[in-house]
């Protein structure tokens, strides 16, 4: 049972346009969310995070939006650049504010973003 779902295995976007990657979760105890980026033959690297007390977090070209009522978050990249081509993983954890959470992150299956020149 996937608690974190990324329903688009791949996404193709033209360079300079906005990339929007989506993620849904089912566990209402999740209160901290992260996005990781992964290039081939490398480990995932942290990109941006958001806690459940916020609905938006921005870092340069990257913005993450959280809609708690819909149990949905999205990552916006604008403008998209060729170096953004990678697999993006959404991840979540529980217990930051409610207590009793477990260590470790629950990951989605990833979305392969392809930036077209």
């Amino acid at each position: 049972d996937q608690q974190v779902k990324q329903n688009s295995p791949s996404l193709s976007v033209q360079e300079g346009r906005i990339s929007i990657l989506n993620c849904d979760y089912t566990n209402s105890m999740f209160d901290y969310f992260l996005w990781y980026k992964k290039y081939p033959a490398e480990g995932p690297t942290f990109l941006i995070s958001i806690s459940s007390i916020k609905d938006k977090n921005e870092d340069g070209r990257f913005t993450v939006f959280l809609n708690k009522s819909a149990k949905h978050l999205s990552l916006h990249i604008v403008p998209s650049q060729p170096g953004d081509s990678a697999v993006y993983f959404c991840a979540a954890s529980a217990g930051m504010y409610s207590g009793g959470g477990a260590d470790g992150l629950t990951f989605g299956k990833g979305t392969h973003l392809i930036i077209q020149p």
Partner: protein
Amino acid sequence: DARVTQTPRHKVTEMGQEVTMRCQPILGHNTVFWYRQTMMQGLELLAYFRNRAPLDDSGMPKDRFSAEMPDATLATLKIQPSEPRDSAVYFCASRLGSLHGELFFGEGSRLTVL
């Protein structure tokens, strides 16, 4: 340059053989995780340690997998006997302290079991 180091980077072995993967977490990080990446399941948590003590290995097939931390600078993941379905990329990650926050991943060990 602090990073998580994993060996081997690639391993090809035959079914039934023992496989050991090693991880050196970032110096000072006290929580170490093993994840497995497959096309079907994405990134799955296999096991993790805090201060060298195993806290959760519920994601691991217990009959053939074992994870240990002989000391603070070494974590191992062993598969005995290996099976073709174990073919995957195995990632080690580490973090300092608190329950939340980013994990720092190694480059992974790609295992192929024939």
